[in-house]
């Protein structure tokens, strides 16, 4: 249900964007036409099909970047995505992404930080019946898998294989496999922290939308963006907390 809602929201957002883009195109055509004398309307259609000459050097870097992404034909904006949206939706920034796009040595303002944390906190939904631990063996597979949601030249087909959690890409977990270092090491996660209800909630929140705890983190919003479902999050949580999990045994 939850996932369906978020997909519907994304589709709605994408169609709104198409409307906006359509609106802009209509406006610029309108402008060009109003500049012409009225008798032109009787003549054959004006050369609207001709691409307008766009002066890249007259744009700000940000305006040019947006133009290159959405108007220059560089990306396949209609490419379907696994969540039912399209390439345009993947490239369109939401509020959190906009706030978290920071240039070199640019720091997040206090106001933006509060906004990101509030938006993220509001996105977090808890499973019916509370946060529970699932199967750590399944969680181990999910933590290792980097499959899913990739598009570009070689789209992942979600039918035969379910999308993974990508955890090892950035984190060290159990030490029998090599994890990345973009995020902190999570080796001995449960052993060090225990598994109190507070600790489970803290961890669930980070997996679901880490921006509520660490604004503008590199970590994907696994729950909020529909990357992982409730059962998958429960399995990954078990991998982190279960005393039998290799994360806590080495």
């Amino acid at each position, binding site marked *: 249900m939850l996932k369906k809602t978020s997909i519907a929201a994304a589709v709605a957002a994408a169609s709104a964007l198409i409307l906006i883009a359509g609106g802009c195109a209509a406006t610029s055509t309108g402008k060009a036409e109003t500049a012409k004398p009225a008798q032109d309307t009787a003549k054959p259609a004006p050369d609207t099909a001709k691409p307008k000459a766009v002066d890249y050097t007259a744009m700000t870097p940000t305006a040019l970047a947006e133009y290159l992404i959405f108007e220059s034909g560089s990306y396949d904006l209609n490419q379907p995505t696994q969540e039912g949206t399209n390439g345009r939706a993947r*490239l369109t920034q939401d509020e959190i992404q906009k706030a978290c796009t920071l240039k070199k040595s640019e720091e997040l303002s206090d106001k933006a930080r509060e906004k990101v944390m509030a938006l993220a906190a509001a996105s977090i939904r808890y499973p019916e019946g509370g946060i529970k631990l699932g199967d750590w063996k399944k969680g181990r597979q999910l933590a290792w898998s980097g499959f899913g949601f990739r598009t570009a030249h070689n789209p992942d087909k979600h039918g035969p294989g379910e999308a993974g959690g990508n955890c090892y890409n950035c984190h060290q977990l159990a030490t029998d496999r090599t994890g990345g270092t973009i995020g902190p090491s999570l080796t001995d996660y449960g052993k060090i922290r225990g598994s109190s209800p507070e600790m489970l909630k803290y961890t669930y929140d980070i997996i679901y939308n880490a921006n509520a705890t660490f604004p503008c983190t590199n970590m994907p919003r696994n729950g909020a963006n529909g*990357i992982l479902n409730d059962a998958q999050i429960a399995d990954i949580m078990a991998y982190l907390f279960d005393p039998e999990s290799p994360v806590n045994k080495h």
Partner: protein
Amino acid sequence: MFKKTLLTLAITGSAVLVMGAKAPEDILDALARKTNNAPYLVQSPQNRMMMPDNPAYDVAEEGAILFKTPRGPKNVSMEKCDFGKGPGVLEGAYVELPRYFADAGKVMDLDSRLAYCMKTLQGFTDNDPAVKVKHGSGSDVMKLQTYIAAKSNGMPWNPPLNHPLEKAMRDAGEVMFYRRSGIMDFGCVTCHTKEGARIRASVLPNVYKPDEWTKAISWPAYRISQENVRSSQHRLIECLWQMRYPNMKNGSDASIALISFWTDAARGAPAILPDLKR
């Protein structure tokens, strides 16, 4: 007159000696020493060992033949193609790309400039395999690119920014580098602004360190895991794939903008061409 020619010969000769003296692995070793063994540069001793026998050399050799052979409907060679330093001048041309080309009216990278010359000089069309097939060691495009790029081995990256369009593309590329989007909120910035950070076992290059970033952008390189020589454009779509972005058109303006920024980020550091990577 005679004296002048001699002098030019001597200068050219010594330049070739100075540059020709360093193989790609020597350049890499020197960068490793200079950076106190930056983890990105020294992550694979195996790959380093294979560099003298880089399969990319064979690809470059095939490229040399293709370059000089009259081809296409117009039956001319590529020797009249201007890569920015005059028709047929290849030495140091690649480290000064992307650049603005007045004849095309746009900023081009090596990939798109090659396609432009194959079409305008040789008469190929976009649908001819010579132009259309962009990837793989067996493609004309990769043979030619590998040959041309190797003529810039050891030279410092120096993409021109004098033309307003070159500057505009580089600056837009910088914005795109930091821009986060997609279902996983990724941008180039997510992986490429820390030194020594890893995705799983792979050490990632840091855009802020020209001496390690140069290896990251030294394409064409032979990729061991793919058993093919790969281009900058190929690196780009693979990154976009991992970032969960949609597909990008080869030679598109967005790709040129990103490559303009990433080449500028390596400015001054010597190119390693051809390189060999995981």
